[in-house]
């Protein structure tokens, strides 16, 4: 294990920013710390960096307990949310700063900085000041500056938050590729799940100062372990009583258990020809139709619940008020304690009959 947090707790006044946080990170991985704002993700990052001190617990980097080691001696590169570029220094001087502090040789500094400016695609802009750069360019400079002293660990605080949507996507891909190329262990903080899923090898989900779940994006998506994760990740329809849905009836209703239905768990069919297992499907009425570019979002009413699902553009169009068949493949059920995945019983039976 490369980075390890053991029983970390941190309070700001009465506010518990970190509440007994434990996790381990392998070397070379790109980790996304994902959570809503105020969930303590930035605090975790700043404690690893040494910019905050935990009240309790140990932080171990590469086998060494770093609690009492100064930020500058932990071998960490940090990219700040607003980049924190030195505004009165040129791009070149910004990137060179860490090396100058380390008293590296002038030729070595020049070589490294030139190399990094090339890496971030800002060749020829070394003499510019931060105020003369675009948001995306500043972000790259901040990234290069953090990398210059050859850190063993790279921390990024909301690296894409201040960049407009179009540049963000491009920059995300660039960052992921570059980090993979350099092979440096990295942790980035984000509140944007799309970003976390796209960039990270592994996601750690935080909520109220605690770690909810850690795993690969697919694992977290397919198998949410806590009610919070089930609701936080992906788009979801919240259903109070899932036992009314066809295929999910139970003999004994578990009280207090709700369910989450992702749009992609729902198949909406014009008629029985469109579905493999029409018997497992439920009847519903189309309430609303919205064109969403690459697909069509359908709001469909089943009993008291309105669910939303998608249909592809190639499928036969539906009209509002039309009766359709709705097949619910699975739901995430959860109560205070746990979350689990339930499959449509009728559908599974039917398929086994076919086989």
């Amino acid at each position, binding site marked *: 294990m490369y980075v390890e947090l053991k029983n970390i707790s941190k309070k700001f006044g009465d506010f518990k920013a970190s509440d007994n946080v434990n996790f381990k990170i392998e070397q070379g991985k790109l980790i996304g710390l994902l959570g809503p704002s105020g969930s303590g993700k930035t605090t975790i990052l700043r404690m690893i*960096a040494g*910019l905050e001190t935990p009240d309790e617990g140990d932080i171990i980097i590469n086998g060494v307990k770093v609690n009492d080691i*100064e*930020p*500058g*001696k932990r071998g*960490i*590169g*940090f990219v*700040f949310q*607003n980049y*924190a*570029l*030195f*505004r*009165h220094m040129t791009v070149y001087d910004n990137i060179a*700063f*860490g090396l100058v*502090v*380390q008293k590296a040789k002038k030729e070595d500094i020049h070589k490294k900085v030139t190399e990094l400016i090339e890496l971030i695609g800002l060749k020829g802009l070394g003499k510019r000041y931060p105020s003369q750069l675009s948001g995306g360019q500043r972000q790259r400079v901040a990234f290069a*500056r*953090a990398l210059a*002293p050859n850190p063993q660990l790279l921390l990024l605080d909301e690296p894409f938050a201040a960049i407009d949507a179009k540049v963000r996507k491009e920059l995300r891909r660039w960052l992921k590729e570059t980090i993979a190329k350099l092979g440096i262990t990295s942790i980035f903080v984000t509140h944007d799940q799309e970003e976390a899923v796209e960039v990270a090898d592994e996601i750690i989900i935080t909520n109220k100062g605690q770690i909810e779940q850690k795993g690969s994006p697919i694992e977290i998506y397919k198998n949410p372990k806590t009610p919070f994760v089930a609701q936080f990740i992906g788009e979801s329809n919240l259903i109070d009583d899932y036992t009314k849905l066809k295929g999910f009836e139970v003999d004994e209703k578990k009280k207090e258990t709700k369910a989450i239905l992702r749009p992609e768990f729902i198949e909406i069919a014009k008629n029985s020809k469109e579905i493999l297992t029409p018997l497992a499907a439920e009847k519903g009425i189309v309430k609303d139709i919205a064109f969403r570019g690459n697909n069509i979002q359908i709001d469909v009413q089943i009993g008291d619940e309105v669910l939303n699902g998608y249909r592809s553009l190639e499928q036969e169009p539906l009209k509002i008020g039309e009766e359709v068949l709705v097949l619910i493949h699975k739901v995430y059920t959860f109560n205070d304690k746990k979350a689990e995945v339930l499959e449509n019983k009728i559908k599974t039976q039917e398929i086994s009959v076919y086989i």
Partner: protein
Amino acid sequence: MKYKLGKTLINKSENKFIKYGLIIISVLFLILMLIIPLISIISEALSKGFNAYVKAISEGYTIKAMNLTFITTIIVTVMNTLFGVCVAWTITKYKFKGKNLLGALIDLPFAISPVIAGLIFVLTFGRGSMFEGILKQTDIRVVFAIPGIILATLFVTFPFVAREIIPLMNAQGTDEEEAAAMMGASGFRIFRKITLPNIKWGLIYGVVLCSARAMGEFGAVSVVSGHIRGKTNTLPLHVEILYNEYQFSAAFAVASILVIIAIIILIIRNIVEWKSKKEV
């Protein structure tokens, strides 16, 4: 949108009327309150001819008062710059209890009348004070001596530097300093390479204001100085003494020195302001 609304609400002729009206009022006020008094000072100073003017400002006591004023100003400005930077740093870069109280205390000299500031030092270091014994033993004179003048001026001009750079440092936050610390820079290097260049113009502006005020301080200094000619007389006090002795042209001549210095400071101030704006 709001801007447009405002424009349509006040129609154009009314708008012009208000604009020129306000300009005329401001200019008249400035002429009455500043230009006329300044001209009268210069003309009074030169009323007995240029030779009398030169004689008045090169007279022994005047030169001594000038020296004392400059020495006081330099010491006070240097010390207040150091204090101001320390306090601003403490308030903006750290979190601690009583921070707001400290911020309010910095402004105290603005709120207290300078005469009372002078009295405070007379009561603290003068006869019957708690320090009297120590001061007598060590043979240090504070009240009615130069240290008293410096202390009183320090007190009165304390807020200038700190007040000028605190908002600046607050706005800039601690990100850049943290970034430098992450790369292993020492505290002193961070201050020299990151903080100082960022607050440079605000700091110079504060220093200029501080020195201007230190040079012209009258009330507080008047109480602690004791008006000993050639020893504890600063320029403003010297003007008052000459005036009270009915040496009007000499009094105005000495006053004109202060006016000229004030104008020079004003020009420096404007250059600083212009430069700092250009850099942003």
